[in-house]
């Protein structure tokens, strides 16, 4: 049987998803179901003086109205920050309480105040309008930059600061800077984004009073985590009485990793009223209350020698956490950001200092790339500026500082196992026809257009795992992954994974791996995920971890199946176990033609004994059945890397920027399915380009969200993109047997600096993201003025 790993197998899940046969949380309905509608704060910051539900309770169809007071009465725990970060002075991070329904203050527009439960959605919504909340409006803190000097939001959190974190050595950096020929400085804003998964968040909780069991359907990237948090922290039900199912999920991009107030409230309310409670976010609620992404203000400096050698790097960042510390909100701007900020380079000395602040905006958490796009944007725009100031070619300065020996001990944390950064950039330059740029620039100029080229070389740390390491760094959970491989008696296979697929194509990629390992045709393999009652505990999908961690767990479980299969086959074939070889789904006695297929062996495991023709004795000490479980915890993160080259054409009269050419060369280690990987790169690029040119979350001074719909929040569209030129290099990861590195976030990490470097190259001026037409036009005008004054 030919190996499936490396082949472009069409996605098994697409038929269902593209023909409307997917089953999402909103599709799930229960008999006797009620509908929840949340009363949300219209103010960014206010004290709640009184919540009066008397009139609303009399509205038609209302079953129940619950408020913060009920949360307190029932001792329902708050939402949690999952990662503990310590400040440079050793003190613990400061975290405000985050009750699922607010009782004394609200802290962003969209914050949850009460839930109205009614027979129909319309009745719930109409009654919600009658809930009278008496607010004392307080001055909102909105600006990331000014948060530390603004009004204090929480009594015990001075300067609105969660932590002041340092990674690296200030003294060594000072030494390096003292020796430098030149210091390049940059001030950046990493614009705030709204995730916009295609499927809005939803929950449907069913409670069975006789068994006291809650079944919660929810839009989650991580149902096991939802279950443990709702049980252990919110205290809604013990873990054995809570089943969480994340059926088909229409995208997450990080925003669905952890449970929100709504899932907690629906589960708790279902138990209270002993009826199912369904909630589906409308798009406005998604804009207001899904966790947002990015939102950094950064000052960074690079110390260089005149020949372009990097000597040292500093990064001073203020990161906006929003109103509360969300589950991965504190790790995103620290350990996922700081280490990668020195980029893909040898950097003798470096530090990253991050001050995380609270503001009266929606909580900020991981969003595709989580910390690494912010890091890459910082270093890659800085390096490009260094090249300009030193009069060097941007490719040359990068080449000069790339490490060439692996494993490479990166400055701040990581030991990078493998890579070929020189080869990657060379390949990108070749595909992009880097040499031909000047000619294309002249052609554009003849049409009155400004053409620019921009590079980005990145590395990132993903495959998020080693549990001992992440726990040492403050993570409140382990990050291994599980798999259970179960042969059914008739020889086909069900694989349970703790990962969760919400667009990534696991049904296909994971089946390819199992098919190769077991020698079973791919159509005989089913991947099961997303139900805490079906498979073992797992940690879900994010941080480009599913294949390297979850996929490897499948390989390990298959190894165990084969080991048992060998013992059973040996007994069946009356040979010694040591003589049994396994390949292509067959157990063969060495140097003979005696063999049993893996299907026959599986059948024997389920029907051990003699019955007519069936003779399948089990080896002594072995149990019946053929099912194995593996929990895999890798020894290291994985480190995808690559170089992207972007070309843009700017119309100086209107400032409109057109992306004319985009080349991405990535090293994801072993590629299981190129079709799926290319799709992931395309999607990541779309989001990265979206951040660079279009998307921007905008709150006004009072904390009202101005970009709260698609009328004002610019999502990129297909006609904004050129054909992407993709290339791959491969240095397999050494930290997992598959050699894979993860590909889900790379596009979103590499594209923003590549695009912005191209825009800035075209117009010759620094500008911030997103490079909207008006901003670019203003910059072009300034240049014109400067040039005419100089002339």
């Amino acid at each position: 049987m030919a190996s499936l790993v490396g082949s472009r197998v069409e996605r098994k899940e697409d038929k269902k998803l593209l023909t409307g046969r997917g089953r999402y949380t909103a599709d799930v309905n229960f008999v006797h179901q009620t509908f929840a509608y949340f009363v949300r704060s219209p103010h960014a910051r206010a004290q709640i003086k009184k919540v009066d539900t008397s009139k609303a309770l009399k509205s038609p169809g209302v079953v129940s109205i619950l408020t913060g007071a009920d949360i307190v009465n029932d001792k329902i725990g708050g939402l949690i920050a999952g990662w503990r970060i310590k400040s440079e002075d050793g003190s613990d991070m400061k975290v405000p309480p985050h009750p699922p329904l607010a009782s004394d203050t609200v802290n962003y527009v969209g914050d949850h105040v009460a839930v109205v439960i009614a027979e129909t959605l319309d009745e719930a919504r109409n009654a919600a309008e009658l809930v009278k909340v008496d607010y004392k409006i307080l001055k909102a803190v909105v600006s990331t930059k000014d948060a530390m000097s603004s009004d204090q939001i929480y009594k015990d959190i001075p300067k609105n600061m969660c932590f002041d974190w340092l990674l690296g050595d200030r003294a060594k950096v000072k030494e390096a800077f003292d020796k430098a020929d030149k210091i390049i400085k940059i001030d950046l804003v990493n614009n705030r984004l709204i995730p916009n998964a295609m499927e809005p968040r939803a929950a449907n909780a069913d409670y069975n009073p006789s068994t006291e069991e809650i079944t919660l359907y929810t839009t989650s990237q991580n149902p096991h985590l939802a279950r443990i948090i709702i049980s252990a922290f919110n205290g809604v039900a013990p873990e054995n009485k809570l089943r969480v199912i994340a059926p088909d999920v229409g995208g997450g991009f990080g925003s669905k990793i952890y449970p929100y107030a709504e899932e907690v409230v629906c589960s708790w309310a279902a138990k209270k009223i002993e009826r199912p409670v369904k909630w589906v976010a409308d798009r406005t609620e998604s804009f207001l209350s899904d966790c947002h992404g990015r939102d950094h203000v950064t000052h960074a400096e690079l110390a260089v020698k005149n020949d372009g050698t990097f000597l040292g790097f500093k990064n001073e960042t203020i990161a906006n956490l929003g109103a509360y510390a969300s589950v991965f909100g504190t790790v995103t701007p620290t350990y996922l950001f700081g280490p990668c900020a020195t980029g893909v380079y040898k950097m003798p000395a470096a530090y990253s200092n991050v001050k995380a602040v609270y503001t009266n905006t929606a909580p900020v958490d991981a969003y595709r790339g989580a910390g690494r796009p912010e890091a890459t944007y910082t270093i890659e725009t800085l390096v490009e500026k260094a090249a300009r100031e030193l009069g060097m070619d941007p490719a040359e300065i990068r080449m000069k500082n790339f490490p060439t020996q692996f494993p490479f001990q990166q400055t701040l944390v990581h030991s990078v196992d493998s890579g070929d950064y020189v080869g990657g950039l060379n390949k990108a330059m070749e595909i992009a026809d880097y040499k031909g740029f000047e000619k294309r620039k002249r052609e554009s100029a003849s049409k009155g257009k400004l053409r620019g080229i921009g590079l980005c070389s990145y590395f990132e740390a993903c495959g998020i795992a080693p549990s001992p390491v992440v726990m040492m760094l403050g993570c409140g959970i382990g990050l291994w992954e599980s798999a259970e491989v179960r042969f059914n008696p008739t020889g086909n296979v069900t694989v349970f994974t703790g990962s969760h697929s919400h667009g990534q194509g696991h049904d296909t990629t994971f089946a390819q791996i199992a098919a190769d390992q077991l020698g079973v045709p791919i159509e005989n393999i089913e991947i099961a995920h997303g139900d805490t009652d079906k498979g073992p505990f797992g940690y879900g999908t994010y941080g480009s971890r599913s294949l390297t961690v979850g996929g490897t767990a499948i390989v390990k479980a298959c190894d165990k199946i084969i080991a048992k299969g060998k013992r059973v086959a040996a007994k069946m074939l009356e040979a010694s176990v040591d003589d049994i070889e396994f390949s292509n789904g067959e157990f063969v006695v060495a140097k003979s033609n005696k063999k049993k297929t893996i299907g026959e062996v599986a059948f024997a495991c389920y029907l051990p004994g003699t019955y007519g023709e069936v003779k399948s004795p089990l080896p002594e000490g072995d149990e019946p059945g053929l099912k194995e479980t593996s929990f895999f915890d890798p020894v290291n993160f994985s480190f995808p890397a690559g170089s992207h080259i972007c070309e843009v054409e700017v119309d100086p009269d209107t400032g409109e920027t057109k992306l004319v050419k985009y080349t991405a060369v990535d090293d994801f280690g072993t590629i299981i399915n190129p079709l799926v990987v290319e799709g992931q790169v395309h999607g990541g690029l779309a989001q990265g380009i979206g951040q660079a040119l279009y998307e921007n979350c905008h709150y006004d001074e009072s904390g009202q969200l101005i970009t709260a719909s698609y009328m004002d929040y610019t999502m990129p569209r297909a006609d904004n993109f050129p054909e992407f030129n993709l290339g791959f290099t491969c240095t397999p990861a050494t930290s997992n047997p598959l050699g894979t590195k993860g590909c889900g976030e790379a596009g979103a990490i590499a594209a923003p600096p590549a695009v912005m470097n191209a825009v800035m190259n075209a117009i010759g001026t620094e500008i911030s993201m997103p490079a909207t037409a008006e901003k670019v036009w203003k910059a072009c005008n300034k240049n014109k003025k400067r040039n005419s004054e100089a002339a």
Partner: protein
Amino acid sequence: MKTFNYHSAKDVKEASKLASSNSAFLAGGMTTIPSIKLGLATYKDIINIKNIKSLSGIKASSKTLKIGATTKHVEVANSKDVKKAIPSLAALAEGIGDPQVRNRGTIGGSIANNDPSADYPSACIALNAVIHTNSRKIEAEKFFKGMFETALKSGEIIEAIEFSIPEKSNYQKYPNPASRYAVVGVYVAKHKGEVNVAVTGAKSCVYNDKDLAKALSKNFSSSVIDNVKISSSGMNSDIHASAEYRANMIRVFAKKAVEAC
């Protein structure tokens, strides 16, 4: 969503009779339905006018092009008659919103709604349109009164829009990158003896830029546009574009439109 009574009128007379100050006609529904769903508008009665055959269709004569009120954007965009008589009008329709909107939204609905950043109102001004209603004919200049405001009276129904066929015309638009409505749209039309330069998106209501129109009437060349003052005062300013940028875009687009004529 608040409940309402739904009616389907079989002719204009019935539709008009059903109308009140608390009703809306349902043409494409691309404005009315989102407004109801978002709670921005509530109506007692919704009166479907899509089944009234006489309100739909395109008729070309030698001097004018008459388009029925419930004709969809996609029908205008694809119409051979429109493409032949006034190609810029077909192009305008092709650039409205997205395929879903173009397959439902209608010209009458667009004009009745008079969104300050809608495309069609500029065509009406530039092409000296006459709005035919069930009770009268209204010149475009008198039809568009202000932001979301028209000369229509309660119960009055637009039956058709009659455009004068110009010698030359062109429409240029900077679409809002998020919604694709016009941040600025400039419609230049050269008729015998006069030029109109209709601007949408820039102010609270579509208008004919008299200074540009006058300069181009004298000399229909893009070179004259740099000498015309385009003041940004009174122009819209929002997160998508400042008044200053809108003023610039009017100049850039006026030139482009003249050059493309």
